[in-house]
């Protein structure tokens, strides 16, 4: 067990496990959906930072 300086909250810990399961599914679906869109010619914006794939820098 790691020691934490903030109380993460028991409910907050548990709900993460649940959400991650749901979110995992929807992202898998979302990723396939965007692959499908790309295949049919809809291009996504290219990322300037080589480190990051799909996200734009916030604040720009």
């Amino acid at each position, binding site marked *: 067990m790691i020691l934490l*300086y903030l*109380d*993460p909250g028991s409910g907050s810990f548990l709900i993460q496990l649940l*959400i991650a399961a749901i979110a995992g599914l929807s992202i898998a679906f979302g990723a396939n959906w965007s692959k499908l869109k790309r295949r049919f010619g809809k291009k996504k914006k290219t990322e300037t930072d080589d*480190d990051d794939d799909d*996200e734009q820098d916030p*604040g720009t």
Partner: protein
Amino acid sequence: MMTTTNKTQVHNASFRDPSGFLFERDGVLYRQVNQVYAEEYTRLMDSGLYARLVKVGLLVAHTESDPSTGSGQAIESADKNLAFRVLYPERVPFISYPYEWSFGQLKDAALATLSIQKRALKLGMSLKDASAYNIQYQKGKPTLIDTLSFESYKEGEPWVAYRQFCQHFLAPLALMAYRDVRLSQLLRVYIDGIPLDLASALLPARTRWNLGLVTHIHLHASAQKRYADVTVSEARGKRKMSKEALLALIESLRVTVRKLEWKPAGTEWADYYTANNYTDAAFEHKKVLVGDWLSRIEAKTVWDLGANTGLFGRVAAETGANVISSDIDPAAVEVNYRLVKEKKEENLLPLVLDLTNPSPAIGWNNSERDSFLQRGPADATLALALVHHLAISNNVPLVRVAEFFAACGEWLIVEFVPKSDAQVKKLFRSRLDIFSEYTQAGFEKAFGERYTMVESSAVRDSERWLYLMRRK
């Protein structure tokens, strides 16, 4: 605000995290890294995470050498028994707080936090807190200022800062987008973010149809209530969260935040510049006067109060000054912030501020977050088309208006708008004129108690006057 011990002043908001603390010595800001955090700090620097985050402007840069000697010498610590290193971070020109941000500013700060977390996870680290107060606007962009916010990621562990992220960012953004943009002010009451049960109760029922909000806020609040008396280890048992699951959680938060929208429309100032008493000539003349005077006094910091969408603050920014551009109207501030982003402006910070009740000092011992005035003074204050609102709408005697501006800084550029002006006439439409002192002579007399008049000029094509004053 700082607490003084000998010559070193420890920052009053820097006490929760044992990893280290901020202190000031001879007016220079430092961050001590404690021994207990040595391993994590070394990992941040050696993993390449620090360099990557600094490169994209998501983390404040620092050096480990003493700026006063300039010879690469280590900096003297503030507490030798605890110290591992002392950092000299780049200083943010003005510390602002989430209850002073427009919707877009809070949203971009939230997205920056998630972007940092995602990048950290790629390099084996994770954010151990997600406080909105750790994000500051630097060069127009949200930047993490707490270098000690990272810890090694341990496979199987959920995100420790998840609750804090929801309270500090997601809850206020959802309330602003779905209920009322003014609910950002709840952050002023709840310093550790909006309690999720409160957010859940205030959000409209239709937010339960939003997958992100029903999970991260509504279900999250229910789970908190249900497991309130259970310890973390009892609650989770042997359950683990894979890294993929954690990344999915971060992505879910990012999509949820990204979809939240609020558009500035229909508020009192949104169409101000098109529906007022000005002619173009008056407007241009005012810009020239403000620009000339600011250059002449060489103001490095300027507070443009009642700035609307920031037009005159931009005149100040063009002279090279660091500008705070504040307005009471969240729509005007949102428009202003969008302009900053669009034009990639680096030295103008829009803020939501009610001058009749400016941000107070809040938090532990009333000293964790500074009041607006404590964050001054500015070299120059701009009060354009503002005095009539304070004096007439808010019944503040002119001498007290002058007193407030004098507390903001040494120089003042102020506009007097007479009762015959259409904007002032509007204020009298529904009320009695009890303001016999509100004349140009009365204004000059009241301000003369605090200020020396350096220069004044009638504004071309109008009945308005502009003054350059210096505090006595």
